[in-house]
């Protein structure tokens, strides 16, 4: 049911764009209004989320530690898994952001016959996530060719590498395949295992279907149902120069692609996808573990007013004296 909900939502979005792509009034909305609104929501939304996180209190350092902490000189410590310095924390973040190190530690729990619970290493999620994210990055960067003229050399080189094997004409890009394969794995992972199915929500399926829709319409436009790509680039350049014009003679499939991308951008700041920004602000990962080396004061601690014994004795001097208690001062 939850998966159906997500699929229907993406289907409705695609249907709106497909139908709207054939009426001139809706074309202006789909080609011009929706992308601008989506970009604005994306940028402002991400900014607001980040500022919101930044304003939350950090009274103490709470890094999750995955290795030996730095202590005595003769005990070997893990500078990247339990960083003691900012540089180490930067290294740890780089490993996380670029190589998904935390997913590399993913384990799988299995109940063996006889009630034996066995934990084993499970690298599939790590590999699938790497495949998806890097393919998506390459696809994203390749699209830069639609937004600037002349196209930078870097993008041409990237395209050349991506299409290195020259399969078909137009060349089928490796990352097109990687994107679909990665998304397919991430979706299958949620569907094959009953426990994963139980845990999965519409908010987990929706981005997967949305991205699959984007990828499939994109690949479809490149290889099967061609659109007038020159008009597409004119629209893209018009959008980034603030004088967009509705492109003439571009098929409805392009509107579906563009509208799904707009939906993705607008959905981004409000969903799990915001981990793109959130990973950088994870207090369990971006702080050096120096709790024992450096004193961290909670900023909202009330001021501690000291009251020494001498002051106390001064306060109760008369009563103590009357009770015959010994006094320091005398």
């Amino acid at each position, binding site marked *: 049911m939850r998966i159906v909900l997500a699929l229907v939502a993406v289907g409705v979005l695609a249907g709106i764009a497909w139908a709207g792509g054939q009426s001139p009034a809706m074309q202006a909305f789909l080609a011009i209004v929706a992308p601008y609104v989506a*970009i604005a929501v*994306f*940028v402002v939304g*991400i*900014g607001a989320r*980040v*500022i919101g996180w*930044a*304003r939350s*209190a*950090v009274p103490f350092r709470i890094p999750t530690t995955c290795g030996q902490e730095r202590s005595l000189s003769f005990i070997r410590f893990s500078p990247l898994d339990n960083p003691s310095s900012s540089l180490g924390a930067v290294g740890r973040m780089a490993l996380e952001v670029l190589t998904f190190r935390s997913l590399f530690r993913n384990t799988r729990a299995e109940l063996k016959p006889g009630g034996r619970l066995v934990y084993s290493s499970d690298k599939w999620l790590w590999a699938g996530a790497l495949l998806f994210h890097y393919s998506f990055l390459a696809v994203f960067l390749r699209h*830069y*060719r*639609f*937004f*600037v*003229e*002349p*196209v930078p050399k870097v*993008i*041409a080189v990237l*395209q*050349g590498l991506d299409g290195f094997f*020259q399969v*078909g*004409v*137009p060349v089928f890009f490796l990352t097109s395949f990687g994107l679909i394969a990665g998304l397919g794995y991430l979706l299958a992972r949620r569907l094959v295992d009953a426990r994963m199915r139980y845990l999965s929500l519409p908010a987990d399926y929706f981005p997967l279907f949305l991205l699959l829709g984007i990828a499939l319409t994109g690949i479809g436009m490149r290889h099967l149902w*061609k*659109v*007038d*790509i*020159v008009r597409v*680039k*004119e629209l*893209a*350049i018009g959008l*980034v*120069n603030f004088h967009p014009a509705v492109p003439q003679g571009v098929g409805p499939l392009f509107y579906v692609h563009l509208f799904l991308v707009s939906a993705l951008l607008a959905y981004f700041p409000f969903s799990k996808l915001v981990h793109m*920004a959130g990973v*950088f*602000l994870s207090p369990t990962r971006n702080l050096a573990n120096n709790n024992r080396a450096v004193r961290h004061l909670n900023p909202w601690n009330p001021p501690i007013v000291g009251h020494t014994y001498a002051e106390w004795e001064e306060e109760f001097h008369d009563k103590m004296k009357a009770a015959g208690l010994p006094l320091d001062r005398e």
Partner: protein
Amino acid sequence: MHDGGKILTGLAVFLVLALLPFWHNAVGGTAAAPQPKIVTQEKECVAPRETIRSTHMELLNTWRDTVVREGTRTYMDARGKTVNMSLTNTCLSCHPNKKEFCDACHNYLAVSPYCWQCHVEKKESA
């Protein structure tokens, strides 16, 4: 705000990267859409204009495979005329201006077809 400087720097980097096409165009300026120049007197190509525009690369690929692998050089085109399957002798006879015709759109879209790894580019006078 804890570590406000670092976070705001990160946000600034995000703004620069996320909106890079906007900055790039604001600084670099833009070019108009290409107008491939047709110099031939012929009125029709081997397929309707729209078909050629969208799928000429597939047609050329099929031609290459047919010629190289099967040795056939005759192609029945959309008008029912037979044409010689040849990039150099058929396509380029009507469109000898590669720079103004082929390259106009290909460069605009950063498409670099590998036709010219085997085929000789004819010298253009202009």
